[in-house]
């Protein structure tokens, strides 16, 4: 297996590394913060991040430094930083590891970001189920406060950077940045219309930056080692740095793999992941970037894992969740199972998404139960057309991706099930429908 230099997982992979403040300091932790406070201006920190080419790791891939520069400098009131630790995109489990194993890396990134954008308060919006992660972060914040890295007058510099953990309570949509802000304000987590963007009207209508855990964890390293160093890793100029890909499904060794962007799916799945779980079964499909990403087939194995290449091939790098499916997996079942998720998680604000997800799910369930009709496939596509691009947030686009892409590559499977329509029970050996 090829070895790459890791950035984010490097510390935690050292034997005995506990993620305590002491451990983190011993590996050079909080040196970036010291360096900045000794005389790099907030604008310069923003420029360093801009020049590094770092793009958001939460899903949309927006250039981080550019996002920061939208925050007004002369704003008279408070500004906020929100760390998006909602990590609810099915197939994604990297932020959890970053928080539970090396919490100070994230905290240092947050203090640096607070400094760069002029925020005095940062909230970590962590999904409610991550109780262990929240406890570990609370403890780390306490440690960092004692040591003067967080709080009033950071390291005697006059900088104020308070950081708090804020736990959600179970709602995928709260990962969408404006829904996150609504939820943080104590309301139902329903996305806001944009514009205005959070950079000018965010939390409590004040300028706010929302960044993903992995994005923020990169900041100390970029500050310490420089923009040029970071920009030379991966697939420059558009996809710089490493990414933690979360490998799941029918692979031999699932898990988190930090690799430079630009390696191929084949390398990730067959070298890092050890290939298919069962040697006798071929790869059939790939979900390349979390549940919201359009499916790929084995023909896409040589696509490179960088923002541009995956987009050109018709999907998205998304959250970094890569799920592998072997021969024999029903793609209708896969689309249906994903649609159960989207139906359950639709917040209900926009009609096309709220009603459409229910129609899509019912139609898929009908086809899967061998009660489909010939016209169902066109109806599915028609429904998708009326959802995509017609909702306030990107959830609408996400929910149609699995349907449209499985219909594109495996339409014959749908047609076969419809032909079997008179048989009402799933054939033996197939994955059963789970209803409740």
């Amino acid at each position: 297996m090829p070895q790459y230099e890791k950035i984010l997982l490097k510390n935690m992979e050292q034997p005995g590394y506990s993620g305590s403040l002491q451990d983190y300091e011993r590996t050079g932790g909080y040196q970036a913060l010291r360096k900045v406070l000794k005389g790099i201006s907030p604008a310069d920190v923003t420029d360093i991040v801009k020049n590094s080419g770092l793009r958001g790791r939460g899903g949309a891939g927006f250039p981080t430094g550019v996002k920061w520069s939208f925050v007004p400098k002369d704003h008279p009131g408070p500004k906020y930083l929100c760390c998006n630790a909602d990590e609810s995109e099915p197939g994604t489990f990297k932020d959890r590891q970053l928080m539970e194993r090396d919490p100070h890396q994230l905290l240092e990134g947050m203090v640096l970001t607070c400094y760069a954008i002029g925020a005095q308060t940062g909230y970590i919006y962590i999904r409610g189920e991550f109780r262990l992660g929240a406890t570990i972060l609370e403890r780390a914040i306490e440690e960092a406060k004692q040591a003067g890295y967080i709080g009033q007058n950071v390291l005697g510099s006059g900088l104020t950077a308070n950081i708090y953990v804020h736990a959600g309570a179970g709602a995928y949509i709260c990962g969408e940045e404006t829904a996150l802000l609504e939820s943080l304000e104590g309301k139902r987590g329903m996305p806001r219309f944009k514009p205005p963007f959070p950079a000018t009207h965010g939390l409590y209508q004040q300028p706010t930056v929302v960044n993903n855990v992995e994005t923020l964890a990169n900041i100390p390293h970029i500050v310490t080692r420089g923009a040029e160093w970071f920009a030379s890793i991966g697939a420059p100029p558009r996809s710089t740095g490493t990414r933690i890909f979360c490998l799941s499904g029918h692979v031999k060794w699932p898990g988190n793999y930090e690799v430079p962007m630009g390696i191929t799916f084949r390398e990730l799945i067959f070298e890092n992941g050890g290939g298919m779980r069962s040697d006798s079964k071929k790869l059939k499909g790939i979900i390349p970037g979390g549940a919201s990403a359009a499916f790929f087939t084995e023909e896409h194995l040589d696509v490179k894992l960088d923002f541009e290449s995956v987009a050109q091939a018709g999907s998205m790098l998304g959250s970094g969740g890569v799920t592998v499916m072997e021969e024999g997996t029903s793609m209708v079942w896969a689309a249906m199972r994903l649609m159960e998720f989207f139906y359950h998680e639709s917040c209900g604000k926009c009609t096309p998404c709220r009603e459409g997800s229910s129609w899509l799910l019912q139609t898929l369930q009908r086809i899967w139960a061998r009660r489909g009709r010939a016209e169902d496939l066109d109806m599915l596509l028609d429904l998708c057309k009326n959802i995509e691009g017609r909702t306030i947030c990107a959830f609408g686009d996400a929910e149609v991706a699995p349907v449209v892409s499985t219909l594109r590559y495996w339409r014959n499977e749908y047609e076969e099930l419809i032909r079997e329509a008179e048989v009402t029970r799933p054939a033996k050996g197939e994955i059963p429908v789970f209803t409740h």
Partner: protein
Amino acid sequence: MLLEKHQELITELLSRYPVKRSALLPLLNLAQREEGYVSEAAMKEIAKILDLTPPQVYETATFYTMLNLKPIGKFHIQICKSIMCGLVGSDDLIQWLQNRLGIRVGQTTGDRLFTLSAVECLGSCGTAPMMQINDDYYEQLTAEKVGRVLEDLRREGTSPLKSGPFMFPQPAGSR
């Protein structure tokens, strides 16, 4: 009553936000930890603490799936049914759990010990199938392992099989 019992914690929570209402989810979570669910009385009290109306609290509480608005069993088994877990056998485990506990998904056992829910992705798809019971994650499940967890919980109230700080795969040479 929440306020009487957790005065200090609540004051600290409120101090984190410039707007009181932001403490709503933290307080609802606290109420649930206290009683196992969020009771109407708790919602009314929270409304008072935060200067909200009870409907404002209720409308928010009903949005979030983790908040139980009715009493549930002592151990809340939430097994993941999303696709990544589904690919590696979660459906069989759910079936197995239903048989073992003698209840269906959504029900509570007669002794009020276990409530079984099937939930969407809990962010642990590389170590699937998985479940969460109260605060703890249990991963890389087999029927045998789930059986042991249930026995542990019945006897001890806790199980050593729960997950610690997450790292997967474990790097060679650690531990």
